């Protein structure tokens, strides 16, 4: 690939949008954006991921309406107070006993510290909460493209960390998590978001195979 295609800003831009959407979803602040949901959907369509990723397409069809039922469903899946049906934490899937704040969590913490980041109020919220992992990936992309635009070599470093993290962390458990959502969810919306998440992250992960070409 040619140098200018490797860091195609438009490509990063649409990834950025999806990451931010997923992050807002998992952080529970999407519900405050009910009024401009249609506009968000239009922008999402503009990413045209639905043309490449079948799960993304299916997901988009299911998230057309943001209902109150979806809010309750979301809380049963990810928030509580009942036993979570699809815990949004990496360690819940990857720790042998499903316990949070174990080695799996501190491994994620180490990744954050590589680029000088940490969780706000560390040790209150598990570092491997999906919303934080999504934010981290989004940040790495942002740094990569910013460095590239400034002509800094460090762009490659950020992109490397991006794929490393995807490969070692989020990409390793998010499918299981989304399967749990699809199994237990009672709303079209949360099912749709699970498909979107699964499709998108799996695609990102698949790019890793062509990492040498991209980098």
């Amino acid at each position, binding site marked *: 690939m040619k140098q200018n295609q490797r860091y195609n*800003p*438009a*490509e990063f*831009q*649409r990834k*950025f*949008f999806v990451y*931010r959407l997923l*992050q*807002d979803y998992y*952080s*529970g*602040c999407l519900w405050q*954006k009910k009024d*401009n949901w249609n*506009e*968000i959907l239009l*922008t999402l369509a*503009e*990413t*045209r991921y639905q043309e490449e990723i079948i799960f993304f397409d299916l997901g988009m069809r299911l998230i057309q309406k943001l209902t109150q039922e979806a*809010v*309750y469903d979301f*809380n*049963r899946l990810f*928030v*509580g*107070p*009942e*036993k*979570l049906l699809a*815990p949004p*934490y990496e360690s*819940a899937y990857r720790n042998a*006993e*499903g*316990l*949070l*704040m*174990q080695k799996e*969590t*501190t491994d994620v913490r180490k990744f*954050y*510290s590589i680029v*000088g*980041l*940490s*969780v*706000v*109020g*560390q*040790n*209150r*919220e598990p570092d491997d909460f999906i*919303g*934080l992992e999504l*934010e981290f990936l*989004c*940040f790495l992309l*942002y740094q990569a493209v910013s460095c590239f635009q400034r002509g800094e070599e460090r762009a490659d470093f950020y992109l490397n960390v991006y794929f490393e993290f995807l490969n070692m962390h989020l990409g390793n458990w998010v499918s299981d998590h989304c399967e749990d959502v699809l199994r237990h969810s009672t709303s079209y919306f949360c099912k749709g978001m699970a498909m979107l998440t699964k499709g998108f992250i799996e695609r990102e992960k698949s790019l890793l195979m062509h990492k040498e070409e991209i980098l």
Partner: protein
Amino acid sequence: MKEISRRSFLKGTAATGAALGLSGSFYNFLFSGLEPAQASDETGIQKFQNACPRNCYDTCSILSTVENGILTKVEGNPQNTFTRGRLCAKGYTYTRRVYSPDRIKYPMRQNGRGSGNWERISWDEAYTLIAKNILKIKKEYGSTLPICLNKYSGNFDIMHYGIEGMLSSFGNTSRATGTPCWPAGIDSQTFDMGTIVNNDPEDLVNSKYLILWGVNPAWTSVHSMYFVQEAQRRGCKIVAIDPVLTQTASKADLYLQIKPSTDGALALGMARYILDHNLIDAKWLMNNALGYNEFFDYLKNNITTDWAAEKTGLPKNVIETLAREYATAKPANIWIGYGMQRHANGGQNVRAIDALAAITGNIGKSGGGAQYAHLETWGFNYHAMVQNKPAGSAGSGDRAININNFGAEVLAAKEPPIKMLWIACRNPMSQDPETSVVKKAFEAMDFVVTADQFFNPSVAMSDIVLPVTTIFETWGVNVSYWHYWLCLNQQAIKPMYESKNDIQIAMELSKKMNELEPGSCTFPTSGDLKDWVGKEFNTGIYNQFGISDWKELEKGPVKTKAGHVAWQDGKFRTSSGKYEIWSEEAKKFGHLPLPVYREELKPANEYPYRCISPHWKLNIHSQFQNLDWMQAINNAPFIEIHPETAQKMGIQEKDNVKMYNDLGYIVLPAKITETVAQDIVVVYEAWYKDKNFNVNYTVKALPADMGKKATGMPGMAFHDNFVNIAKV
């Protein structure tokens, strides 16, 4: 072409991203959950002092290891010579409790009690909703009496009595009063000796003869079991008396499977033998007791060992041997369990057993005694608890609601009715008798608030749930009702998620109430929880434990300096100052003055089996059983049935059995075992997560005979539950 459209997309979304309010835009990365790393003080390995605050004899001293701000290990603190560096199976699960993905993490509101439709709300929203409801109730009914607190033993940290303080700071309120656990026995010893005091359990090793009467320390006080077995090693004979062949009984030298609720008959039969064979300690009685002549007359006129044998189902010669051995081994000790007093005649039975210890002169001696419990080390300031009511609070005082008949009394409360519940440190929907009535009471409320760590049936019936801290996330101070140690509970880690200590909640709610209606709540609106621990101490406690400042406890737990042999000074706290075998005080509370036999309840024809619901080894009431390690061992309730009974009813191992009475039924698999008698079934009183029933659905709110004097309400006859069974 594709390239162009993507470029326009880029241009477009840079603007729309911001307009839509998604977090940040491409050219302006806004952090939300992450931030540039700050210097942290949570680095390296640190050790902290903690205390297990559960409703348990052992109240363990815990040493916690924290690595980089994460709790990585809990172990017993070896400085405590009672717990001796070990925890129990439940205690070792504490890291699971803190970091379970299932913890309640945020304040939440349920739209429709029991609907499962939960919304996350902020603490401010929660306080506003709660405060407005309290103020509305006060306005509508003219007082805060329609607000009822049900708080008890989920956390026995001294500062947690501030939850009662919070209710006081609203005004006069209704209170779940009494205790389900042990009141009949407390009253018995209060009538006999003036209060409850037991020998230091570490003194068990000095016994020559030890009767474990209706107590199963191998499951419910594992650290005591060390001292029991050490006594045995030193030559002490261990006798276990229990309707169920427990783990403890299996370690005893002699096990007696007594008919339930006839313990008083056994004690009185033994007393008659001791009297007849002149094995009494007349000198001790003359110096220390009142009413022994009347008691001896009663024994001579009414009691025989033949009668005792018939009542208890134990052979006469066994009773006689037991009596002779007990009366002649000096010192001889009896540990009276809480299980044996959960009967309609439980209090009277405990008095008869106490009398055995008295007539043999075993009271006030190292290695002797009639051990039940003590509150000798609980003389704190109760700074968090003692709060003034707001000036001009309507009503003449708090209203007592019987904790052992909670559902019915909440529903029956009039003028004013009860409209709001605050549930803390408790799970009445699992632990109370007559669960279906309790559920009706929850349903009848206008507003229910529950503060807890995990979702349970009481949370399910609440409007608001508030996440509370675990012991590692906050400060506290703990003592035991059994051993004589004092242990600080240090904050070891930050509170996870948005959890808060109940006292923090009280402070912040008070702030909100005063914002909405100045002067409506007297609870302090701010304070440092560590400072508040210090405010619980006084010179009495300092002298008792030989410390001069509570901060010395940061170095480790301490034990009382004296008083390890109960009643050694012979100064009983009855009105006469003597041991009162004849108790005028008992008479005042409607009991017979002597520890005479009160008939046990017997099964009726249609319900021929007695269901005993003792404690299970992997839980304390509704705590611990919900954690994965416990679930891995056993994750479902079962019913224990004697092989002959099972055969008669056509029941085989693991068959589903319906256990029922006129209150309701439960269906659970059979475990066929000779550890129970033919006419008894056993279902352990655990709450099993994800099971929508437990044994309390069949338990009537039947009072024990005693408890009113010391705890305000009679105890609960949990083990007088008569049922029938059928294969389904």
